[in-house]
Structures are given as structure tokens and as C-alpha cells.
């Protein structure tokens, strides 16, 4: 319905998880748990960014489209568009 750009979400998510994973460790306060918290931040950033990236790349160039029932087609046509 709406045209989605590809570049904008990539930039937003890359900067967001980049902040969490790369800039975040600099701000962790010194203490006995510093190593654990830094590892957690980096691992979270890597896992979540990768998961989102796989989801958007899988839909970037679809090889086939969704099969809809004709009632759904009418519904989508008049309510979403």
C-alpha cells in the first residue's frame, strides 16, 4: 500500500543496535559486573540486529506473492487502500 524504502530502516536499525552494542559498553559503570554487562550488551545487539536483518532481507526480493481468497481481496482493497 505504502511504498517502503529499504535504506531508511537499515540506517535506523543499524545505528540503534550499533549504539547498543558498540557505544553502550563505554558507559557501563565500573564494578565487579562490568564484564558481564558488556558481554550481555554486545551479544544482545548482535543477536537482535541479525534477526531483524534476516527478516528484512528475506522479503526484499520476493519470488512469489501471497495467495488470497477473493473475500480477502475485497476487504484489503477497500479497507487498506
Amino acid at each position, binding site marked *: *500500500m*505504502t*511504498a*517502503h*524504502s*529499504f535504506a*531508511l*530502516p537499515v540506517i535506523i536499525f543499524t545505528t540503534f543496535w550499533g549504539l547498543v552494542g558498540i557505544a553502550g559498553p563505554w558507559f557501563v559503570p565500573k564494578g565487579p*559486573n562490568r*564484564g*558481564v554487562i558488556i*558481554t*550481555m550488551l554486545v*551479544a*544482545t545487539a548482535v*543477536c*537482535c540486529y*541479525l*534477526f*531483524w536483518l*534476516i*527478516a*528484512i*532481507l*528475506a*522479503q*526484499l*526480493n*520476493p*519470488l*512469489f*506473492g*501471497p*495467495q*488470497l*481468497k*477473493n473475500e*480477502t*481481496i*475485497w476487504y*484489503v*482493497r477497500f479497507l*487498506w*487502500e
Partner: protein
Amino acid sequence: MLWRVCKGYTIVSYAELDESLEDPETGEVIKWYVFLISFWGEQIGHKVKKICDCYHCHVYPYPNTAEERREIQEGLNTRIQDLYTVLHKTEDYLRQVLCKAAESVYSRVIQVKKMKAIYHMLNMCSFDVTNKCLIAEVWCPEADLQDLRRALEEGSRESGATIPSFMNIIPTKETPPTRIRTNKFTEGFQNIVDAYGVGSYREVNPALFTIITFPFLFAVMFGDFGHGFVMFLFALLLVLNENHPRLNQSQEIMRMFFNGRYILLLMGLFSVYTGLIYNDCFSKSVNLFGSGWNVSAMYSSSHPPAEHKKMVLWNDSVVRHNSILQLDPSIPGVFRGPYPLGIDPIWNLATNRLTFLNSFKMKMSVILGIIHMTFGVILGIFNHLHFRKKFNIYLVSIPELLFMLCIFGYLIFMIFYKWLVFSAETSRVAPSILIEFINMFLFPASKTSGLYTGQSGYTLIRKDSEEEVSLLGSQDIEEGNHQVEDGCREMACEEFNFGEILMTQVIHSIEYCLGCISNTASYLRLWALSLAHAQLSDVLWAMLMRVGLRVDTTYGVLLLLPVIALFAVLTIFILLIMEGLSAFLHAIRLHWVEFQNKFYVGAGTKFVPFSFSLLSSKFNNDDSVA
């Protein structure tokens, strides 16, 4: 009988006592009879006495005059009163003493148990030469040596001993036990790793990474926004009330949930995120940004008539007569770009939803799995570095990495390449990745068109070279270096070491190579469980809520209440508890087998110091003073 024996010369009169008294010997409550025998003469008296003795009767003297009888009766009455008073007072006193004892019996039990534990510990010490002191050999972490000295000094001072206790450091060749410091947050994850095996002394601790990867892999299999949120709320409740005393002492199952509260918290949080990406909230999708698929563009009215001949387009009669129609992304305007956050919501309405999701989730599982396993091999490098076996890095880790990355890393590359390069226009010629992958090994006579030019030549070169390196290189040079290392041993042992090392390395190489393939396939359970979860929640919605929501308003409101209640109960029991346990188990299996067998040995013993707080859990289990 008396009448017969005495030939009628006795008179018997008896009466039953009013109260039945307690027989002092047996404690039973029996009825007592009192009888009075009047006789005349000595011999009859003897006979009567003998008969009475036979029947174990109590005989009492009977005074002759009435006044004496009354006196005796009064005396007896007073004695009875006195005895009653004494008995009552004794019972009261007994009850008081028992009550006072009952107040302190709990603390006394704990004290006894503590003393028993201390004596048990002292039993493990050995005696000095002079038999006057005890010597204890203990393991102590180096960081705590100062604290140990101070504690010994304080103890000697407070107990007023004449000779203070002291400690010496003894060199030893034994392997120390493993001590890993945890706080209440990391303890749960460390328990997960320790359940497989406690780490060998000073090897890399996978629990540090398990803190995030375990909830993440669970969430990939559980992936539902609504269910994840409920789980998160439940865990939050447990965490906020963790100091509540009732939670500390509950029984087994509740205690397991309580111990894993931080794990549950992270699992719920990650499930919310993966639910957002899977676009699955109680099996319904959320349309936040507008779908990327445009239905109107499929109609012929959206395109200029010049292009109608090239494409298959719809109009109203086509749509009315066909019950199922498929959108075609090669028609311009139908597909307008990928949905920015997760899976497009139109797939929830599509009948071929699973075809798309299966392809997506399978590739995702393989990508996540290979990255997880590669990370495991890299952790093995840290192990080799620490144990000063640098040759192991070149001979074991690098071939392992090469094998993994050249074969499965190439698979990942092919997946990403196909996603980026092939689109709807070229979909007819898009090759199947799996067939290309298998062809890499089989070299079929008929070459199918590869993903890119020059693919066949590349596969040949790369595959042969790294297989050579991995299978043979690690064995030969490893053995050579082991001989150098064990050079100080006797010559007789050298041959034996060589054979043993050869065997171990061959087994390790074969196990690793086969394991790579089977473990990669094993990660497909990420796909399988997330599919099962999505289908279960879809069925629950279709069978329950849709039935409730379709009824019209007159009965609908009344019907909807029990339907929602049933929906909630079944969601919690089937989807949250059963599926949650299942995904938990499979995530643990992925960590224990596929991730940890790349680097973890886990043959150590745990350092369990003597501590009263560890005993306290036993106090709650044994209720009696055992």
C-alpha cells in the same frame, strides 16, 4: 459359686460403682463392682479368701461398727480429693513445661544440626604428630587468602585459645576444584551449564554467553508477542517479590520457577522482540506501517492498456469467479518494498503463508546455527591460548574454522546472495540453494546453472584444499609436537603416546566433520518449534475466539465471557507452559550438544565450601529432628 462352696453359709451383696475408674495397670476404663461378703467362722473365711484371691479381687478390711465405717469413709473421701488435686496439678505443670519447650525446639533443632555439621567437618581433619592439634587440608581461592588469614586470627582470638590457628600454603600437582563467582542474576545460567558438567579448572565458561544466547534461542522458537509479554509479567512478579519469605520456602515446582526467575524474565523479553519480528500476537499480525503488498495494482484498471498483454491482470469478474488468487510481484506496483519491522502483515491473511514462512525460517535457523557453532569454535581458541597450547590453534582450531566456514559459511553466503540478487523477474531461473550445495560434493554430469559464473571452479579448489588440511594436518603435526612436549618422559612411553594421540585425533576429526553436518541440521528445530507454536496458537484462536466473536450481539456477550476464560486457561496451560517447557528443553539441548561440544570439556569438580546457609535449605526439607 460362693454359695456352693460355703454350703449356703454366706450372704453376698454387691453394687456397681458409679464411675468407671481407670485400671492403673492396663489403663483401660473398666466397670468396677463392689461386693460385701458376710460369713461366720474361720474356715469359711479361709475358703472365701482363697476364692477371692483366685479372681484377683482387691480385699479391704471392713470395720464392725457404724462410726468406724463412717470415719473410714470420710478418710477415704479426703484422700480421694487430695489425690485428684495432685494429679491435676501435675498435669498442669507438665503442660506448662512442654509449652515452654515447644517455643524453643525449632532453634534447638537448628543448633543441633549446626553442631552436627561442624563435627562432621572436623572428622575430615587429620591429627597432628603430637595428637594435640587438627590439621585440615583445604582448597582456597587465591583472591581470598587474606580473608582466610584474618578469619583464622579472629576465630582464635574470640575463642580464647592459647595457641592461635595458622595456615601454610602447600604446593601440589592436583587439579583444584572450579570456583565461579556468581550473583543472584547469573546463578541461574551457571546452573544450566553446570547441569551438563562443571567446567574444568580455568577453562572458558560458556555461561557468560548463555545469559543472552539461551533466552534468544528460546525466543526464536517461542516467538509470540502476547505470550512473551505474559511470561515477562509473570517473571517480573517473581523478581519483585523475591524477598517474600513464602517464596523462599515453597515446595519443589514453585522453587524451580523461583530459581529461574531471571531466566524467565529474559526469555519473556526476547520473546516479545521475536514476536514483533514474526509479527505474531496471539496468532494475529499487527499492521503498524502499512503492508508492502498492493492489491489494487493487480487490477487491469491500474495499468495503461498498452501493458495488458504482457501481464495476467484481474478485473471484478475474475475476482468474483476465482476463490483464490495469487499476487504477482513482477507486475509493477504490486510489491512496494519490504516491511520495515518484521514479516509483512498480509502474510497472515494469505493461504500460502506457510510456504513463505517455511523458507524464511529454515534459512534463518541455518544462519543462526552456523554462527552459534562458529562462535563455539572461536571460544575454543581462547582455551588453547590459555593452556599454552598454541600449536593447537594452528592444528585444530584453524582447520575446524576453515571446514566450517568454507562449507557452511559458503551456504550462508549463497543464502544471502540469492536473497539480494534474485527477484521476481528472474524467479524462473533462481536455483535451489540446497541442490547447488549438494552438487558441490557430487559434481553431476549435467551442470545446472550456478548462482554466479565461475562457481563450479571455485567450489572444486576450495573444498579439496581445506579438507586435506583439516583431516590430516591436525593429526600429523599434533603428534610431533606432543612428542616434543613429553620429551622429558621415558622412552618406553613414547610409542604408546603416539598411538593414542593418533587415535584420538582421528576420532576427533571424523566426529567434528560429521558433527558439523548433523548439528547444522539439528538447528532446524528452531524452525520446527516456531512453526508448531504458531500453528497451535492459530488453532486455539480459530476454534475458540472466532466462534465467540462470530455470534451476534444478543447472545454474543454472554457467550464471549466463558469463551474468553477458556481461551485464557488453554493459552496458559498449552501454549505457555507446555510449549514453553518444550522450547526451553530444546534450547538447552542446542546449547549443551551443538554449542558446547565445540570447545567445552566440563570435567571439573565444583568448589563447595562449608557454609551454614547451604545447610539452611536442608532445614526446610527435614521437618523433624532426624
